[in-house]
């Protein structure tokens, strides 16, 4: 009985621990999304709001299309990242700054912004 009890507790602890890990993962991606959002809105970083309307952003410009339903428009996330990395690939005369090649954002920052935009 004692042993059985112990087993149950161990199993419970394992389950609990697994649950904690899952929760930790979920909150990590929440905070990554928050980081991406901050980078996208920051005037000194992405400043995407200068040209695009984005949910939750204020004083947005209207030079580029509003960024919404992005999974429909960019089912392939790599293509979305490529657009943010260097918009000149799709349109050589674009006004959208080449965030990657001109080092306006780092690789890591572009990943974070891409995640945030992809989830809009």
């Amino acid at each position, binding site marked *: 009985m004692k042993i059985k009890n112990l087993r149950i507790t161990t199993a419970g602890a394992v389950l609990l621990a697994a649950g904690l890990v899952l929760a930790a993962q979920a909150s990590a991606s929440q905070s990554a999304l928050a980081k991406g959002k901050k980078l996208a809105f920051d005037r000194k970083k992405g*400043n995407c*709001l*200068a*040209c695009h309307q984005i949910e939750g952003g204020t*004083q947005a*410009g209207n030079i580029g299309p509003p960024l919404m339903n992005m999974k429909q428009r960019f089912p392939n996330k790599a293509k979305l990242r490529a657009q943010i990395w260097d918009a000149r690939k799709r349109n050589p005369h674009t*006004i959208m*700054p080449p965030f990657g090649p*001109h*080092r306006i954002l780092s690789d890591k920052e572009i990943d974070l912004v891409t995640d945030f935009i992809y989830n809009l």
Partner: protein
Amino acid sequence: MKKIATLLLSAGLVAMSAQAVPSPQEDLKHFRDYFQRKFPGLKLDELRNGINALDENHRMQWEAMEEFPPYEEFVDKGKALWEKPFKNGKSFADCFGKDPSKVRVKYPQWDAKKKRVVTLELAINECRKANGEKPFKWKKGPIAWVSAYLGYMARGQKIHVVIPNDPDALKAYEHGKHFFYAKRGQLNLSCADCHVKYAGRRIRGNLLSPALGHVTHFPVFRGKWANKSKDGDGLGTLHRRYGGCNKQQRARPFKAQSKVYRDLEFFHQYMSNGMTINAPSYRE
């Protein structure tokens, strides 16, 4: 046969070079047509009012400011400087002629001898130096007061930049034009991106003015500049504004009155030929 080939070739070359480099007159026509098509409801001269021509809220704020113009006292200071004799007994009138209303329209002008563009501000300081006076600082203060006074006296006259048919003058013009259309800075933006292609749109909170008519009200009086100064003097020259807009591209600004900015001004002012001078004017 050879003769005909050469003839065809040279005819082709002539046609090609004529196509490759449109004349300033052709540029001006395209520039105007473009904006008149973009803003069909606005008369040519209305476009010079920039964002105030495009947005009712800005227009109301602007009209209220113009009722008690904050630039008036600085225009008066410019008048006083214009009238005050130099130490040698001469004055600005000895350089520019007696009538202060006839000065603004002559600038910028091509100086064929020195092969360079002379702006009004450059001429003001060269006049001072020639008379043994210390030159003014380039972007604000006394130089902007005198320039604003001369612009104010010329209100109602039309911008009239002459680009002589001289290869060096055309080179300066082309240089300025190229600068205007070239992508620049970390953000890779051109003047034309913001003030031609997307004129009338909003970039973050700011409405973008059309480049057509930009120069008619310079030196401009900006609320932002007035707030930054100790005595509420918001006047600044065109080259001060160029520096600010270069920074918006995250590019290093050039010196006021450098060759680059003078050439840019040559092109930029020429594009407003025929539009009515309204200097100085209030902007945010």
